C-alpha cells in the first residue's frame, strides 16, 4: 500500500470535508466530522503532525477549568514569543484536535507552530496519550461532575494517572487536590506543583472535605514546594509567589472568579516548565488574558452587562456563587441534563443557594428547570418564572430586567443555547462552535 502517498493527501481531503461540513451547518459548527473522516483513513495524522513541534505538546486536563487554563497557558506562551497551536473551542476530545489541526496545517501537512497546548477531557486524554506522548501535562483537579460518566472520582483519578505516566518532560500538579498530587508517584518525569497559601485554602474545599469542617489540614501534599502559588486575592487583584523569588507579585486579572485566579497560578507553573521566563513578564502576560467563552464571559446588551457563568459540579457552582455577588444583579439559572451536562441532578443538592435568598432568582430554565425550582424552594430562595424553553426564557429575562446587570448560571449545553439566544439580541463573539 502506498501509505505515504495517501497520507500526503490527508490535509487536502480533511480540509475539504471540513469546508463541506461548515457549509451544511450554515457556516457554523461541524467540529467533529472531518476529524472522524481523517481518523478513519489516516490514523497517524495527529501524531505525525504534532511530532513536528520543537516545544512539543502541553496537555491540560482535570474536571474543572480546562478551557480557561488552556487559554491562559496559550496566551502567556504567545506573549513570550512562541507560536501556539491550541483547541480553544472546548472540543476537548481527540477528533476535535484532529479537526483543529486540519485547519492549522498547510496543504503539505506543515504546522506553523512551536508548541501545542491541548485541552482534553479525562477519558479522551487516555486515548490521546496512547497515540501522542505529551512533553508536558498540567493536571488540575478531580471533582464530581463526571461521576455518572466515569462512575467514581477514583476512576477519574486513574485516567489522569495514565496521562502522568505517559508524560516525558514535566507534569505539573495541583498540590491542593490530594488525588491529583498523589499522581506524582506514577510520573516517570519531572514533577512540579502549584498551590495556594494557607489562608486561601478555605476558598477551595476539596470534594472529600465538602462536608467536613476541618477541611484543610488534612492534606499532606499541601507541604510540597509550589513553583507558583496564589497567595492573595482581592477582587481582580491576585498576589502570586514564585519559587526561588522571595518577592510576591501582583497581577490585575481580567479573568473572573477565585478559581480562575488559581487556574492562572497553575498555568504559570506550566509555562515556567516550557520556557525560562522572568516572573515580572509572566505576571504582565497573565494580566492580559481574557475569559474563555461562557466562563465568566460578559456580553453587553444595550446598557446592561450579562455575565454567562458555566457551572457543572457542586464545587464550581459554590465557588461561582461566592465569586459573583448577587446584590445589584438579576439572576437566572439554566439547568440541562444532556450527556455533556451530566444526567444526574444529585449535584444540585450539594450547592448552598442561601446566598441568593436576598435577591431571589428571576428565572429558572432548561430541561431540568423544575428540579432547580424545587432545589431553591428547599433553600427558601424566591423564584419568579420557571420555563423549560431556554431561548424564550433568556429573551424574556433580558427584556424584563432592562437597566439591571445580570448573571446567568448555566450548564454546558444550556450555555450554548443561552449564547445563541443572546446572539439574536446582542453582539456575541463567534467561537466557531
Amino acid at each position, binding site marked *: 500500500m502506498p501509505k505515504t502517498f495517501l497520507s500526503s493527501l490527508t490535509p487536502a481531503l480533511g480540509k475539504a470535508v471540513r469546508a463541506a461540513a461548515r457549509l451544511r451547518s450554515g457556516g457554523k459548527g461541524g467540529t467533529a466530522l472531518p476529524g472522524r473522516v481523517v481518523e478513519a483513513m489516516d490514523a497517524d495524522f495527529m501524531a505525525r503532525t504534532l511530532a513536528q513541534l520543537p516545544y512539543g505538546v502541553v496537555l491540560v486536563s482535570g474536571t474543572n477549568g480546562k478551557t480557561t487554563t488552556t487559554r491562559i497557558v496559550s496566551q502567556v506562551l504567545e506573549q513570550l514569543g512562541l507560536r501556539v497551536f491550541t483547541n480553544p473551542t472546548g472540543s476537548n476530545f481527540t477528533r476535535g484536535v484532529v479537526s483543529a489541526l486540519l485547519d492549522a496545517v498547510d496543504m503539505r501537512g506543515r504546522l506553523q507552530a512551536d508548541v501545542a497546548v491541548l485541552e482534553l477531557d479525562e477519558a479522551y486524554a487516555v486515548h490521546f496519550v496512547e497515540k501522542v506522548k505529551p512533553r508536558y501535562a498540567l493536571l488540575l483537579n478531580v471533582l464530581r461532575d463526571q*461521576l*455518572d460518566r466515569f462512575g467514581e*472520582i477514583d476512576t477519574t483519578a486513574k485516567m489522569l494517572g495514565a496521562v502522568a505516566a505517559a508524560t516525558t518532560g514535566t507534569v505539573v500538579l495541583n498540590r491542593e487536590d490530594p488525588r491529583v498530587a498523589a499522581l506524582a508517584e506514577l510520573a516517570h518525569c519531572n514533577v512540579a506543583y502549584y498551590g495556594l497559601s494557607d489562608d486561601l485554602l478555605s476558598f477551595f474545599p476539596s470534594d472529600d472535605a465538602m462536608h*467536613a469542617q476541618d477541611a484543610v489540614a488534612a492534606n499532606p501534599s499541601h507541604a510540597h514546594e509550589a513553583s507558583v502559588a496564589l497567595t492573595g486575592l482581592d477582587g481582580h487583584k491576585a498576589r502570586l509567589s514564585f519559587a526561588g523569588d522571595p518577592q510576591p507579585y501582583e497581577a490585575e486579572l481580567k479573568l473572573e472568579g477565585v478559581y480562575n485566579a488559581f487556574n492562572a497560578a497553575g498555568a504559570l507553573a506550566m509555562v515556567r516548565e516550557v520556557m525560562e521566563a522572568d516572573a515580572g513578564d509572566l505576571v504582565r502576560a497573565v494580566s492580559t488574558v481574557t475569559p474563555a467563552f461562557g466562563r465568566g464571559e460578559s456580553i453587553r446588551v444595550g446598557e446592561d452587562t450579562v455575565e454567562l457563568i458555566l457551572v457543572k459540579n457542586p464545587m464550581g457552582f459554590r465557588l461561582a456563587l461566592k465569586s459573583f455577588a448577587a446584590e445589584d444583579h438579576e439572576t437566572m439559572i439554566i439547568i440541562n441534563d444532556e450527556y455533556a451536562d451530566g444526567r*444526574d441532578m444529585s449535584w444540585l443538592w450539594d450547592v448552598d443557594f442561601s446566598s441568593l435568598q436576598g435577591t431571589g432568582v428571576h428565572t429558572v430554565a432548561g430541561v431540568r428547570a423544575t*428540579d432547580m425550582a*424545587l*432545589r431553591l424552594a428547599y433553600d427558601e430562595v424566591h423564584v419568579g418564572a420557571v420555563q423549560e424553553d431556554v431561548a424564550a426564557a433568556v429573551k424574556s429575562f433580558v427584556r424584563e430586567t432592562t437597566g439591571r446587570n445580570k448573571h446567568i448560571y448555566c450548564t454546558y449545553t444550556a450555555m450554548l443555547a443561552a449564547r445563541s439566544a443572546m446572539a439574536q439580541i446582542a453582539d456575541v463573539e463567534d467561537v466557531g462552535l
Partner: protein
Amino acid sequence: MDNEKNEDSRVLDIVSLYPNDMNIYGDTGNVKTMELRARLYGYEPRIHAYNVGDAWPEHVDLILGGGGQDKGQAVISEDLFAHADILHTLAEEGVPMLLICGMYQLFGEYFETVEGQRLPGINVLNVHTVGQDTRMIGNLVETTAECGAIVGYENHSGQTIVNSNETQPWAEVHAEGTGNNGTDYTEGARKYNVIGTYMHGSVLPKNPQLADFLLKKAAEHRYGTFEPRSSAQQLAQLEKLNALAKAAFEVASKRPR
C-alpha cells in the same frame, strides 16, 4: 428519657449517618427534605451529623445514610460494625432508616468483590451484593407498594439479591438492566422500617410521599402516633413544595436513562 415524652415535646432526632465520608450523590438533599418537612408538620427536627468516632446520639427516631466511594466505605466500616448491635435494636424497634447505595450494601449480609473476596455487612437486611464490571447508571422510575411511583437516579456496579422472606424487595422496576441486579425486576429492599435503595437524585425531594412515610414512622416511634400540627402558612408551604416536586417528578420520569 421519659421527660422527652411530655405533652409539649415535638422533638424528632434525625441521624445523618457518616455525612463526611458517605455523601457522594447529593444525599444531603434527603436530610434537607426531612428537616424542612418535619418542621412544616409542626415537629422540632434535631439533625445529628454522626461521623466516625462521634458520640452516638441519645435518641434516634430516623436514620439517613448515603452512598460513598469505595474509599469512604473503607473508612467508616469499622465504626459501623462497632454500632451494629445498636442499629439492629433500633431496626427491630421500628425506627425508620433510609439507606442509599453504598450504605444499602453495607446493611446487607455481605459484598462479594469481582475478585471473589467477601466483605461482610452488618446484616440488618437479608440481601447480598456481588460486584461486577458494568455499572447500572441512569434515570429510573419504580413502583412501590407503600409509596407508589418513585423517581430517582441509580449508579452502582454491585448486583444485589434479596435472600429471604423476612426482607422484601422495596420496589418493582419495569426494564431489564435496571434495579437491584438487572434481571429480577426488583429494586431496593425493606425489613421492618429499614429501606435500602439505589435511588438518589436526591430521592426524597422529588418523592415527598416517601419522606412523609419516614416522618410518620419516626413520629410513631417517638410518640406512638403521627400528629401533624401545621399552621395555615406551613400548610401552604407544604402544598407549594408538593406541587414543585410533582412538576420535577414528571420531567424526571420522562428523561432518557
